[in-house]
């Protein structure tokens, strides 16, 4: 018997009971739709967050003042938390594999230029900032590599701030005020857009030492350490610990690697995916039981047809395949319906809530359909074997 005839034969009996077949496939369809829709959302969110996190590269180590335990409370062992200083930042430059170190102080201040004022974010950083964060300078240059303790009063504008203050006009060499202090504009940045909710374009960059003065802070908010691609993160972290502990006399700071953040993210998404899988799995199981039931009924109803096929020369193997094929066709059709529902739902969701990141990888689609087929096979085995085991004469005589 040719494969296309097997399919044709199985299909003809599925089509003969159209309503029943559609109802039977619903269980599978709902299960597959749920899996596809939810994994599309999961994958969309995953990609979105991952892209946000890794746009600066994955080889970043962040150092924050204060030791934070897993539960987020300071241990209290070190009553005096020494602030992270610019000297600390300098010292970190000498650790092996480290390519750049960026001290960070952040706050808000009024920026005044060309007679206009605007309240924006102020980033106090070091000269290595653009290289470290793959952030391009549109015109002029970034902050020069001055003595970190006594840098010149230079400022670099984010693209949006530049436009707000100067429009199309040239801003290089112009004077502005940041929180009342006078600065000279030495460059402005290319547009970067929003990163995790911060508009990096509506920003002014000034030397970290001046930002410390401006905000009256004793220490840096963060030091970002970049190391060479492919270098062992543990060694970099160990180096950071060694240098800072010897400088501070104790571990009064927290080191977070990008990998740790990604791991946490990955495990959260893993739990989510598992929950989704379990949910979809339950409806698929229900769908599989539905197919099993309808196939047992079909075999009973068509007992005399089985006898006839055997009388016409069909082998047990052929009978087995006909009924297995029927179960698979039912589940595959359910799978296709589920895919249509799931992908359509994902699309609709994205259409209604454009901010919702949705992504359906082709591999998921293929996997979901393969899963449906496997369920059909599993559900069809018992009824099909029962059909194949029938004795021709007894089957023929059944009414």
């Amino acid at each position, binding site marked *: *018997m*040719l494969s296309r005839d097997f399919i044709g*034969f199985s299909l*003809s009996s599925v089509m003969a009971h159209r309503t029943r077949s559609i109802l039977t496939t619903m269980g599978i369809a709902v299960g597959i739709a749920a899996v596809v829709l939810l994994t599309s959302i999961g994958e969309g969110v995953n990609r979105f967050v991952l892209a946000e996190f890794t746009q600066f590269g994955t080889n970043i180590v962040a150092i924050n003042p204060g030791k934070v335990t897993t539960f987020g409370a300071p241990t209290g062992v070190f009553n005096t938390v020494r602030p992270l200083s610019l000297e600390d930042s300098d010292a970190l430059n000498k650790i092996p594999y480290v390519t750049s170190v960026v001290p960070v102080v952040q706050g808000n201040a009024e920026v005044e230029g060309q007679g206009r004022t605007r309240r924006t974010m102020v980033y106090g950083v070091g000269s290595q900032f653009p290289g470290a964060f793959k952030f391009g300078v549109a015109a002029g240059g970034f902050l020069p590599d001055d003595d970190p303790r006594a840098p010149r009063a230079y400022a670099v504008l984010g693209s949006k701030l530049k436009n707000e203050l100067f429009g199309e006009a040239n801003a290089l060499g112009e004077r502005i005020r940041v929180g009342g202090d006078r600065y000279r504009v030495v460059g402005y940045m290319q547009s970067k857009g929003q990163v995790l909710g911060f508009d990096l374009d509506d920003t002014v960059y000034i030397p970290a030492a001046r930002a410390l003065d401006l905000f009256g802070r004793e220490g840096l908010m963060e030091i970002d350490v970049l190391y060479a691609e492919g270098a062992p993160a543990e060694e970099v972290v160990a180096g950071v610990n060694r240098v800072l502990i010897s400088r501070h006399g104790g571990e009064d700071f927290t080191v977070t690697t990008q990998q740790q953040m990604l791991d946490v993210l990955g495990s959260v998404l893993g739990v989510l995916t598992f929950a989704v899988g379990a949910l979809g799995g339950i409806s698929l199981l229900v769908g599989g039981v539905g197919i099993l039931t309808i196939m047992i009924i079909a075999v009973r109803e068509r007992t005399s047809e089985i006898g006839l096929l055997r*009388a*016409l*020369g069909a082998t047990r193997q052929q009978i087995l395949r006909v009924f297995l094929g029927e179960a698979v066709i039912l589940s595959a059709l359910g799978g296709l319906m589920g895919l249509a529902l799931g992908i359509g739902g994902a699309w609709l969701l994205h259409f209604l809530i454009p901010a919702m990141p949705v992504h359906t990888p082709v591999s998921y689609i293929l996997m979901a359909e393969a899963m449906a087929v496997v369920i059909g096979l599993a559900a069809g085995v018992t009824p099909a074997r029962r059909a194949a085991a029938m004795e021709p*004469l007894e089957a*023929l005589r059944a009414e």
Partner: protein
Amino acid sequence: MITLEGINRIFQVGDQQVHALDDINLTIQPGEYLSLMGPSGSGKSTLLNILGLLDKPTSGRYLLEGREITSLSDDEQATVRGEKIGFVFQFFHLVPRMSAFENVELPLVLAGMAPSVRRERVNVILEQLGLMDRAHHRPDQLSGGQRQRIAIARATIMKPSLLLADEPTGNLDSRSGTDVVEVLEKLNAGGITLVVVTHDGQVGKRAGRRLRMVDGAIVKDERG
């Protein structure tokens, strides 16, 4: 040629044994036309089913064209049924969801024949039986006589050497019954061995060789 030697068929019903066939010895020449008559329960269907490999004898030997049949495997028996034997049943046994054409085509499909060859052969046989205009009707859109002729077409599409009919006219009025018998006889004239089980004496006496069974044994074997 068909040879049955010492065929017994015993059914076990509870703790009771039913001796449906009792030491049957029978030789059938190729192209013969046999009728099998006898009271209800005398074992006619049982004998026909054993001839058609739908049932196995409890003991005895069955040779079909010189080949010992009873010891064949399940799959080999299926192949022999498909290639050498055609069945016509009292209740037609057409597949209700399939058209007349598809029903006739079924044995060719099971044998794995290519669609173009199948179409050709089915059309030829439907033409011969005058059923061309009914090819795409489903069984429930056909009369009893037409259904039985479709069943005959299906039974002979594989060009078997043996055609077995169990009360082929039992469910038909006498007009269409005669039609069906004439179709069967035409096939027999073409060389096929024909065995017809019937309760109808008019049908039974048309055969060249007439067997009578009582209580599982052949009690009369007339020719001419």
